[in-house]
């Protein structure tokens, strides 16, 4: 059980070899005392703690190779020869080594509570957190005072919708979102609709883009907030933020966007786009899991009702101790993303094109879901339907490839994706889709391997597919009277 994790970790660390301190510290696995020793060496203590005695390694981790043969590890009944190659960057991204470097001191020696007022630990921690706030703000063209740290984009989305709706509930009773927004936005909207709010779920065009005329028509005098996802998590559609922002500003309606999939990947400026509230997640841009932020505009001021009672941290909007190591990692991830965006985009676009063209060269009947124009999509997301092959069986075959069918939140259910259905993708095609996510650390060799594996398994499954056989025989599948099951 521990071996796959261990191997994945080793693989990641090999990638991070450039970043010296991390590789040294964590490279010697299972030696926590050494890390502490290293930390002690790097910092002067006014009173040294007693050295910790060496703890013998846990039997399970001592020699994982002894438990499972080298070639064979088994998880969930699937035998694997090694960690699969990771192409699921919309689900989450690995930490950038620069981010780990930034976080490490806060997890070893600078562990103070950033809200502590009475000693150096608190003061230095607060300084670091405020520095991170500045880095997040700089990436989106905001004032640091407009950044509130949360646990992630789900919390931020909840806070934006419920917070604004509840604060303005005296006058405003209407909320607008889209059918393809993230489940947490849709679920928050549903929660509000059960409490007296009216919600309009706007349909989208077949490429996932919002019809701006429909949006303008849907706005009413009592509309409190419009929430439109910036980059769709399943199909990568990039909504026209500037235009939507202009419409919302014209009608004096607050504009919220779930930008979890967009921040750090596409240029964002909250003022140019007239964004009033925005949800951000750190782990989608090579930062740590467990932290995100909500941007809340100060001029004109957006007010909202806090969802959590407590010590009044984060300007009373989000009580609870700010996790300083995560915040600092998040800040660093934003800084790195700002510096590397052009390089990242070029790298990811090159690999995405390589993947798409490589698959198309060897397989027929592949459909790219979402916009075909690269300007209207985030290029690192390729949602492809392989006609006449069922997605779940393809995933089972592609066990050496970590990809996703539908979004990670819905892939546990047997239903085809609600996003693809909102686009009008026919159900048989919706059952055949896979999402390939390419990121900063994806390599050309990985893409080539992914092409080879996908071609191999799609071809194998098509040979087994009665639908593929019919198509080869020239039978139109749509004319067949299927026995509904």
């Amino acid at each position: 059980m521990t071996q796959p994790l261990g191997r994945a970790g080793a693989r990641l660390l090999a990638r991070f070899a450039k970043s010296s301190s991390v590789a040294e510290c964590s490279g010697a696995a299972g030696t926590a005392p050494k890390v502490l020793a290293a930390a002690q060496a790097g910092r002067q203590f006014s009173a040294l703690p007693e050295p910790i005695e060496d703890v013998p390694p846990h039997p399970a981790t001592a020699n994982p190779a002894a438990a499972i043969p080298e070639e064979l590890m088994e998880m969930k009944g699937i035998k694997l020869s090694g960690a699969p190659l990771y192409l699921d960057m919309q689900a989450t991204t690995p930490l950038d080594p620069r981010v780990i470097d930034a976080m490490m001191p806060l997890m070893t020696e600078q562990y103070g509570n950033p809200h502590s007022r009475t000693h150096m630990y608190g003061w230095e921690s607060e300084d670091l957190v405020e520095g991170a706030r500045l880095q997040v703000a700089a990436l989106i063209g905001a004032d640091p005072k407009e950044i509130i740290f949360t646990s992630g984009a789900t919390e931020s989305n909840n806070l934006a919708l419920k917070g604004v709706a509840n604060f303005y509930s005296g006058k405003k009773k209407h909320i607008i979102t889209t059918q393809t927004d993230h489940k947490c936005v849709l679920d928050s909207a549903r929660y509000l609709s059960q409490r007296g709010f009216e919600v309009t779920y706007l349909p989208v065009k077949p490429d996932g883009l919002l019809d701006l005329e429909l949006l303008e028509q849907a706005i009413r005098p009592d509309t409190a907030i419009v929430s439109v996802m910036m980059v769709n998590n399943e199909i990568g559609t990039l909504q026209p933020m500037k235009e939507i922002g202009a419409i919302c500003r014209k009608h004096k309606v607050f504009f919220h966007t779930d930008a979890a999939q967009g921040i750090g990947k596409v240029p964002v400026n909250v003022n140019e786009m007239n964004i009033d509230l925005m949800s951000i997640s750190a782990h989608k841009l090579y930062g740590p899991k467990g932290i995100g932020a909500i941007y809340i505009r100060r001029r004109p001021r957006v007010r909202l009702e806090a969802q959590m009672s407590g010590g009044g941290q984060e300007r009373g909007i989000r009580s609870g101790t700010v996790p300083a190591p995560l915040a600092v990692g998040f800040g660093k991830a934003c800084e790195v993303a700002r510096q590397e965006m052009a390089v990242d985009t070029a790298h990811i676009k090159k690999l995405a094109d390589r993947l798409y063209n490589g698959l198309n060269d060897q397989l027929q009947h592949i459909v790219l879901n979402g916009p075909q124009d690269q300007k209207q999509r985030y290029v690192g997301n390729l949602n492809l339907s392989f006609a006449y092959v069922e997605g779940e069986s393809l995933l089972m075959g592609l066990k050496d490839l970590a990809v996703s069918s539908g979004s990670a939140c819905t892939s546990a259910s047997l239903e085809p994706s609600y996003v693809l259905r909102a686009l009008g993708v026919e159900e048989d095609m919706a059952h055949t889709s896979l999402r390939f996510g390419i990121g900063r650390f994806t390599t050309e060799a990985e893409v080539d391997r992914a092409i080879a594996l996908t071609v191999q398994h799609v071809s194998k499954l098509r040979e087994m597919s009665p639908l593929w056989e019919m198509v080869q025989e020239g039978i139109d599948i749509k004319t067949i009277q299927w026995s509904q099951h």
Partner: protein
Amino acid sequence: MLQSLRCAAGALRESSAACQLVRPAVAAAQRPYHKNVVDHYENPRNVGSFGKNDADVGTGLVGAPACGDVMKLQIKVDEAGNITDSCFKTFGCGSAIASSSVATEWIKGKTIEEVVSIKNSDIAKHLSLPPVKLHCSMLAEDAIKAAVKDVQAKRAAAGQAASPAADEKLAASA
């Protein structure tokens, strides 16, 4: 949910309720596949096709692309009603592929009377299918029955076509 409703609405057959029962949008926790499912998925038995117009071939085509499962199971039957060969092609999840692969193995060498008594529960048990995958084994059972029905219908049609011709011959000779 919408899909299961649609599927159920279009359903006419006896086992159609399966779609409604088995396909609600309940989040099923990711379960490990049983080793038998993995084995049949990775090494499917009897993949292929027989000529569907051949007189000794019975074809069962069940399921629907919109539901995510289509199964085609074929049998070759001799004069005595023995299944001498079988094959399948399946569009569906790993459990659906495994169910049809198992079905083709089990029916080979049996008579068409025997195989219609194969129960979906036997296939499900052999593959340790979780509740959300039971429809795969039901589909396999349906495919067997449909294939047997098809070959019986062919025989009956051939019998009817043959007997008037034979009568004519008799009349001519008399």
